[in-house]
């Protein structure tokens, strides 16, 4: 924009009115002086520091949250691991007990079977031979 005599506009003709002309000139001068003073006023850095503080606070809060969440998750994980180990141990003990009971039952079954075989075999002795068998029993007794 070119600086020139702004009152040369014949449409407005404010120069015909010297009072208006002076008032507009003074208005311009006062606005210029006001603007220069405001433009060159010393500025504090408070506004620039505030966002930095907010950011620091936000970052600190975020880090704190991450640490708390991390600690809690590690604790939960360890607790979960312990539970799993306990369950595995309990399952092993139960399995061991089950196997032992099974073996015991097997042994009992074997003894019963042998006893049954013995009784069966003994029943196969003919009735006619029973007196002899009785004698053998008697001989064996002291």
């Amino acid at each position, binding site marked *: *924009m*070119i600086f020139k005599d*702004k009152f040369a506009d014949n449409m407005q003709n404010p120069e015909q009115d010297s009072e*208006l002309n002076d*008032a507009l000139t003074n208005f311009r*001068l*006062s*606005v210029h002086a006001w603007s220069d003073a405001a433009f060159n*006023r010393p500025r504090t850095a408070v506004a620039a520091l505030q966002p930095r503080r907010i950011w620091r606070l936000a970052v600190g809060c975020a880090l704190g949250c991450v640490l708390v969440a991390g600690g809690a998750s590690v604790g939960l994980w360890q607790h979960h691991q312990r539970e799993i180990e306990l369950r595995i141990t309990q399952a092993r003990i139960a399995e061991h007990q089950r196997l032992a009971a099974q073996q015991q039952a097997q042994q009992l079954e074997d003894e019963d079977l042998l006893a049954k075989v013995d009784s069966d075999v003994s029943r196969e002795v003919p009735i006619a031979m029973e007196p002899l068998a009785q004698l053998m029993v008697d001989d064996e007794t002291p």
Partner: protein
Amino acid sequence: MAAATVLERMTMATAEEIAAEEFASVVARHRPQIFRFLLASTRDVDLAETLTQDCFLKAHRNWSSFRGESSALTWLMRIAINLQKDHWRNRRMQFWRHTQNNAVALDEASEWLPSGERSVEQQLLAKERVRQVSKAVQGLSERQRTVFLLRYVEEAELSEIARATGLSEGTVKAHLSRAVARVRAELGGKR
């Protein structure tokens, strides 16, 4: 091929540096004028500073699209006017509340009038006249105020005002005529 790519990159980097330097010189040259126009329009130093920053930020983003059809100041002034319009439109209610709290009193604006060679009586009279003009300007419509300030504070040509505001010269003249009539009436009524 690789040499050509490196050369292209160097050329682009140089062009960007030149553009940045050009823009920096434009900012240094025109920032006080943009700030002054926005301060006169809003009467709020903080708001004027914010809008000035926004204006140059927008200008920087669009600097590559500036083709030099008008002067850089006219282009910047157009951006500033649009920003101010947007601000008024978006925060009409808040703006007036804000302005009432932060805007300087009309008396204070007139206090900046340089004393010059005038006598005390003349100074008082001049300050009173400035106060009256400020009051009249405050009562103008947004468009009339913009045209008036560009003409009588920034001393812009009518054609430049027309380019900056996006109005025809005839419309600018009409707005200016009404604005001056209002100022004249304010001064006349206080005589």
